[in-house]
Structures are given as C-alpha cells and as structure tokens.
C-alpha cells in the first residue's frame, strides 16, 4: 500500500501533464475532424464530409504515399550511409573513438534551419556545387535541377539525419559481445560471414531504431520542402500546414493529420510485429 501511494504521487504530475497537453489535444483533433467550418467553430455539427473529401481527393492520398516514399528513401539511404560510420567507430576507431564521435555530432549543434538553408546555398543556381561544376567544365550552364526539387529535399534531409541514425546503430554495435565474433571465427566464419551471420542480425535493433529516428520526423517535414523543395518537392506536411496556417480548414487538416498518424502507427506495428528481425535474416 505504501508503494502504491508513492508510485501514484510520483506518476501523477507527469501523467496529468501528458494527458492535458498530449492526449487531450489529439482527442480534440479527432473531434474536430468531424466538424465543419474553417476553424471548426460550428460546435453542434457532426459530419463525415471531411473524411469523404479526403478519400475522394486522390491527390491528397498520392501526396501522402509519395511523402511516405520520400521519408522511406531518406531513412534507408541514411542507414546505408550511417552504418559504415557506426561500424568504423565501434570496431575500428580504437582510441580515436570518442574524438570521431564528437566530430560527427558537432555539426548537429548548429541551428536546424540554417543547416537546411546552407544546402540552399550549396545547391542553388549560384551555389557552390554549380560553381564547382561550371568551373570544372562538367556542365556549361548552371543546373536548376539541384535546387527546388524532390532530390534537393532528399539530399538535404539525409544530410540532417545521418548523424542521428548513426547513434542507435553505433550503440547496438557497441553492445555486441566481442567474444561472439571470435566464436564465429573459431567456428569457421570468414570475416564477411561473421558480419552477415552475427554482427548484422545483432545490430538490427539499432537499425530499426535508426529508421524511426529518420522516418517519423521527415514524414512530418514541412520546413525543408519550403526552403529547398519548391513546388516539386512539396510534401504532405506542407499540406497539413497549409490547412492550418493558410487555407484555414482545420477540420480537413485534422483528417489529414490523422491519416498521417495512421501511416506511422501501421508502420510501427508492422516493424515490431514481424517478429524478431534477426530471425528473418537467418539464412
């Protein structure tokens, strides 16, 4: 009984805060999705029109899937780029490990907005990449493809997320008992076989965590598309932001937000229910 009251006393303040400012807003948003009017001011109307409109407008859905696809691409490429960094730090860096780790994390301490903006300078038609390409004669006139495109969004967000994706992969690699790798060699594995059969499966939790680290924030992105994406690189997050900040159709925006949440939850569900991923990788 004593424990019960201590537990309750400790847990109540954070629980109440989370309820009021996290769960309640999500609930209110759900209620709003059934309302009408630009800011949902009509309290007494219950309508499914917003859902109908969302389902009937295939461009909304297409943008959602395309954004999910972009986020997926960003996450996968980030993992592919980050894994060798994490591997090098965990297994090869030796005494330089913490210095290299700091070196890779430091850029993330710069303002997020400015890091993205810097890519606008890098990719822009008067930017660094174009200048290099022009001066080396690889291209003859400034290429506009580099900026205001979906590729620009992907490149910029990969830049932003590689260090964060690297962290969970690194910590799962660090946790692998080095004896297991010796055991694999002892039982006849060449080094690539040890990697495929032991290191990679055991680092999968870190890879999955890294995937979510990148996937969830990029799915909700609206700033990067605004800065470097242009009309071509617009994402689903921009659609939601427009509904709230410009079009002022909050109920519609709520439906769109819930659709995005559904995508996130379905993906989480799939990735955690597929069973231990490591087992799937067993040949």
């Amino acid at each position, binding site marked *: 009984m004593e424990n019960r009251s201590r537990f309750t006393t400790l847990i109540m303040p954070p629980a109440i805060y989370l309820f009021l400012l996290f769960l309640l807003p999500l609930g209110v948003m759900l209620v709003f999705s059934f309302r009408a009017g630009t800011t949902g001011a009509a309290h007494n109307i219950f309508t499914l029109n917003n859902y109908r409109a969302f389902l009937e407008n295939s461009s909304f859905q297409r943008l959602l899937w395309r954004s999910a696809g972009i986020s997926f691409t960003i996450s996968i490429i980030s993992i592919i780029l980050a894994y060798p960094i994490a591997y090098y730090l965990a297994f090869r860096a030796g005494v330089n490990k913490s210095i290299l780790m700091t070196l890779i994390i430091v850029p993330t301490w710069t303002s997020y*907005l400015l890091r993205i903006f810097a890519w606008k300078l890098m990719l822009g038609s008067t930017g660094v990449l174009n200048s290099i390409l022009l001066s080396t004669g690889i291209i003859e006139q400034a290429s506009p493809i580099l900026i205001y495109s979906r590729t620009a969004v992907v490149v910029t967000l990969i830049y932003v997320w590689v260090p964060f994706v690297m962290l969970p992969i690194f910590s799962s690699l660090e946790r692998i008992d080095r004896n297991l790798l010796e055991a694999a060699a002892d039982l006849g594995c060449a080094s690539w076989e040890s990697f495929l059969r032991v290191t990679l499966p055991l680092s999968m939790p870190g890879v999955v965590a890294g995937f979510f680290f990148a996937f969830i924030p990029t799915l909700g992105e609206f700033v990067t598309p605004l800065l470097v994406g242009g009309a071509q690189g617009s994402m689903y997050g921009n659609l939601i932001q427009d509904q709230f900040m410009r079009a002022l159709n909050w109920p519609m925006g709520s439906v769109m937000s819930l659709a995005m949440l559904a995508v996130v939850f379905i993906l989480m569900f799939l990735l955690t229910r597929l069973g231990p991923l490591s087992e799937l990788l067993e040949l």
Partner: protein
Amino acid sequence: MSKIKLPSIGAIYIFLICAVLYAPIILLIIFSFNNGTSLVFPLKGFTLQWYQKLGENAEMLSAVQNSFLIGFGSSLLATILGTMGAIAIARFNLPGRGLFLAVSTMPLVIPYVILGVSLLILFKEVGIPLSAFSAGLAHVIISIPYAMLIVSSRLVGFPNNLEEAAMDLGASYWEALLRVTLPIISPALLAAFLLCFTMSFDEFAIASFLVGTDTTLPVYMYSQLRFPTRLPMVIAMAAIIMTLTMSSMLISEWLRRSGQPPTRK
C-alpha cells in the same frame, strides 16, 4: 594488424562524411564574415560589421530572449516531470506502469507537425492565447521522453537498496529520494536539462504554430530567410550561438569524463 600506415577505406569514408557534414557550416561561417549582402561567390572581402550590428537589432534580441526563457522553463519542467516518471517506472512495477511508459514515450514517434496543430486546436478551443508561453508548454511534451530515458538509465545503474539504507537510518521515503537518490543522479539531471534546452532552443515546427505574435529565435530566423539582405546578420547570430553551444557541450562532456575514472576497453 598490419603495420603499414596507409589510411584504410573506413578512415577515408569517415573523412569524406566529415567533409560533407562540415562543408555547409563552414560555408555559412565564411559568409558571416563576407563584406556583401548577397550570399554568392566571389567573396567581397572581410568584415565584422554583421557581428557589430547584432546589438542594434532589437527584434532579434527579443527573439533570443524568448528562446532562452522558453528553453529554460520548458527544460526545467520537463526534467522535473521526467525525473518523477523515471523514478516511478524504474523503482515500482505496479499496474499503470506499462500504460504510463507507452504514453510518455509516444511523443517520440509522432511527427512534430501533428503535435503542433493538435495543440493549436486545443488552445483555440479552450481559449488560451497563443504566445511564447504556449510554445513552451508544447516543448515540455517533446522533452519529457528524453528526460525520462536519460534519468531512468542512470537509475537502473545503481541499486535501490541505497534508498532502503537511508530509510533504515530513519529517513522517510521522500527524504531518502531527496538526500540520496537525487544527488547520485544529479549528473543525469543536468544532462537531461541540457539536452531538453538544446532541443527547445532550436525547435521551429511546433513553435511556428503556437507562438502567435511572439517570436523565438528559430521563428525569427525563418522569417528573415526570405530577405536576403538581412541574412548575413542572422548567420552571424547563429555562428555565435553555435560557438556557445559547442563550448558548453564540450565543457560538460569534459566535466562528465573527468568525474569518472578512465575506462579500459
């Protein structure tokens, strides 16, 4: 294994990654010293004018002040709430623990844009005016999971029989927490606070929905990105903040390391 000192493929790869990671930042810093308003090459000569003009920009200074206040307040509250939650889940296995754990870590997997708009709806509905303060309330939500994770990983690192020892010596449970547990986990509390502060200080997406007519530094910066002539000054400000962040992070990292014996690996 080999004694030959050729850089390995791995080392070359790390070098390239670092080059790419730093290039955009170095580019920004170069432009903050460039004597020209447009951010294009060729450079127009060295100047400190953008740094000197910072002090005259009242709007920017008030944005910085707002960001500090929000960052400080939200991190303090998130650290307190996160610590309470962390102690509850690390020390008790009672009904409600699982539910609390699920809810408190959920903000980690929800895109910020959704957190922002849902709070926007709530504040409008309840009649809370939008301000820097309301943005701060939202920052507590995204900070709680991080604070909890940092503190609870520290709590599982030491046995709870220290609390029992304190109680055996006559302390009440709450005295034991205050006099034994909290001092032991104080480095984790500081680390949690610093991380939450850094996140809040740099957060744009949620704040952009909730600040109303107030500005935070990221919100101000975003508004200035459309006016190229003001950019060098924004970049100068960011360079100063980056330098401060880096030195404080490096100092705290150094303090953390020097506080413990060197690890042998």
